């Protein structure tokens, strides 16, 4: 108690009645900030311009980076959905084929929805005098669906019910057909080289490697496969003709995408090699994350220059307004009012610059996209959208703008708030 009394005696200010401190309204603080920016037009425009160029360049580069990444992934996963695992027996140390036993084992793995098989049969196609070596893939009906094959001349459903073959345009050309469509409905000869591994071991009649007549019922019309030389038929047909019941490769449809790694591990334990488009997507993503890091470094350098420009402007503004700050304080403004005035002016500058930069950068990127699409349309290349600004980037940029405003405004604002009122009242 004595200590308190002693303290009260020497420091009466601390024990006075509760003080109500009035502060300037936010609207007034913002208006003064805005007016100050408006009155120093050239200086403000240059500073806002610096920030908007910085943010604009970053937005432009990042939107292209994200856009191209999304475009590549879109293209890669178009015919290869992420819920499909490709399996093959390319592991030579442990030669396994996808026969009924292996398929049964795979189907029992939790998370697997279905297993579709493809048997690769090497051989020779002959059409009159024209002949060529090519692989004939014998596939199950589900394989056709999972491969998302584009076939011209026959529907996927009719193909799976037929005993005919579908060929690539290149194969049709090599077999002497002027146009791929000329091959439709025509019969060609095929001589297969059948390995024992995929033939039914219990078959009564052993496989005969004789030539068979096959009818071309469709053309594979996939842009990316125009130069490939191969053909598809149904596995059932190969079974009838060559007793082939097993395949060297297949596709596994996953019911639960989260279990994909587990399924892959178990399939690999069976001696098979697995591949998934997820691997490619991961590679693409890791490549683009390196690109993004480079862009971020580049962007940081640009923004540092803009930030220095902003700090310079605010410091000059403070020097010019020392007397304004002084008179405001003399008339009753508090330190926090002055601090807010300067910090909000900085935020106003960075926000205007940021908004212009964000919209400008995105606009320029979109414009470039439109021009590229216009040019590519003339050359018959399909249009692509390669500009993307993800929401997370917008949030990051807005956060960055606020942080930029606060960090560049902090130092001048603190200095301004510490100016003593008497400094303004000293006569010159």
């Amino acid at each position: 108690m004595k200590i308190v009394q002693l303290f009260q005696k020497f420091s009466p200010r601390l024990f006075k009645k509760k003080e109500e401190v009035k502060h300037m309204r936010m609207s007034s603080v913002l208006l003064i900030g805005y007016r100050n920016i408006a009155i120093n037009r050239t200086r403000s425009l240059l500073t806002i311009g610096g920030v908007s160029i910085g943010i604009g360049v970053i937005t432009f580069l990042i939107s292209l980076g994200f856009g191209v990444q999304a475009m590549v992934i879109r293209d890669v996963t178009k015919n290869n959905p992420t819920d499909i695992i490709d399996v093959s027996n390319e592991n030579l140390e442990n030669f396994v084929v996808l026969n009924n036993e292996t398929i049964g084992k795979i189907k029992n793995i939790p998370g697997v929805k279905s297993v579709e098989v493809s048997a690769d049969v090497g051989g020779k196609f002959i059409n009159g005098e024209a002949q060529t070596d090519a692989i004939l893939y014998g596939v199950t009906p589900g394989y056709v669906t999972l491969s998302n094959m584009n076939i011209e001349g026959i529907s996927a459903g009719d193909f799976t019910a037929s005993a005919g073959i579908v060929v690539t345009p290149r194969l049709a050309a090599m077999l002497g057909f002027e146009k791929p469509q000329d091959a439709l409905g025509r019969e060609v000869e095929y001589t297969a080289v059948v390995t024992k591994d995929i033939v039914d071991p219990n078959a009564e009649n052993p496989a005969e490697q004789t030539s068979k007549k096959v009818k071309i019922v469709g053309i594979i019309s996939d842009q990316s496969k125009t130069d490939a030389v191969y053909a598809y038929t149904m596995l059932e047909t190969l079974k009838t003709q060559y007793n082939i019941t097993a395949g060297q490769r297949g596709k596994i449809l996953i019911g639960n995408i989260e279990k994909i790694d587990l399924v892959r591990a178990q399939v690999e334990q069976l001696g098979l090699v697995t591949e998934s488009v997820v691997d490619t997507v991961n590679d693409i993503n890791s490549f683009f994350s390196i690109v993004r890091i480079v862009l971020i470094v580049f962007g940081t350098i640009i923004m540092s220059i803009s930030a220095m420009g902003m700090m310079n402007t605010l410091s000059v503004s403070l020097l010019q307004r020392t007397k304004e700050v002084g008179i405001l304080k003399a008339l009753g403004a508090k330190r926090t009012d002055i601090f807010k005035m300067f910090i909000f002016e900085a935020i106003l500058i960075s926000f205007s610059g940021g908004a212009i930069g964000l919209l400008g950068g995105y606009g320029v990127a979109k414009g470039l996209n439109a021009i590229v699409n216009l040019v590519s349309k003339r050359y018959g290349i399909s249009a692509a959208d390669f500009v993307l600004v993800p929401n997370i980037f917008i949030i990051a940029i807005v956060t960055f703008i606020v942080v930029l405003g606060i960090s560049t405004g902090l130092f001048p604002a603190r200095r301004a708030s510490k100016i003593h009122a008497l400094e303004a009242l000293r006569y010159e």
Partner: protein
Amino acid sequence: MLDLQKENEIAIKVSGIKKNFTVGGREIPILYGIDFEIKKGEFVLLVGPSGCGKSTLLHIIYGLEAPTEGTVYIGGEDEWAFSKNWRANFRNDNIGFIPQQPFWIKSLTVIENIAIPAVIAGKTFHEGIKIAAKLIELVGMSEWSNHRPYDLSGGQQQRIALARSLLLDPKFLIADEPTGNLDQKAGEQLMELLQNISQRFQITILMVTHNTEQYKFGTRIIQMVDGKIISDTLNKHSYQAIKDDLNLSENSNEAKKSK
């Protein structure tokens, strides 16, 4: 009862003010114990040569410069017993201030600058401008409302500064050589305006001046030399002083009669 009445009549009480400045590690005394009281409605001129401590005393009364010793009571409140923010609020609420150079917020118009004390008090510009419109009319500067303050002449700027100081209906005005940068005519006009406002609204004014020509406008003259008050007299030429004298003599006559 008499003491209470006397207390109520006092606007400012300066009590034992001493002020030292430290220059190069040495304490230099500027004010050597200043004591005086200013009654409500008085127009006090604080006069003296340059460097005698007038402005320092004014800054202590206005709450900007802390005294080394002593304190200032304004409207009964011990000004130096509170925090900086309290004094800022108090200045804003109760004291109108006219500095020698009326600094402005460059980006705001004349009327917006007059409204600044209201804005500092937490009002909107719109609310402040409403009051400012009446005051700019009072000082005869309505036509300059939307100009920039620095576009105006020194005399015009001081009129605007007067309007700004009156915005929140202060109990008294402090003016630090407001005519210091004006020519004689503009100075006289401003002094007439100040005198007029003091008489019309019964506002207490404490003003620092050098100019002996302006002594006629005050009701009381406090003269300072070297940090001390050397004289404190009622101005015999002023209307208020004559009125006060009359009241005093009437009171003393009544007192004699009652005896």
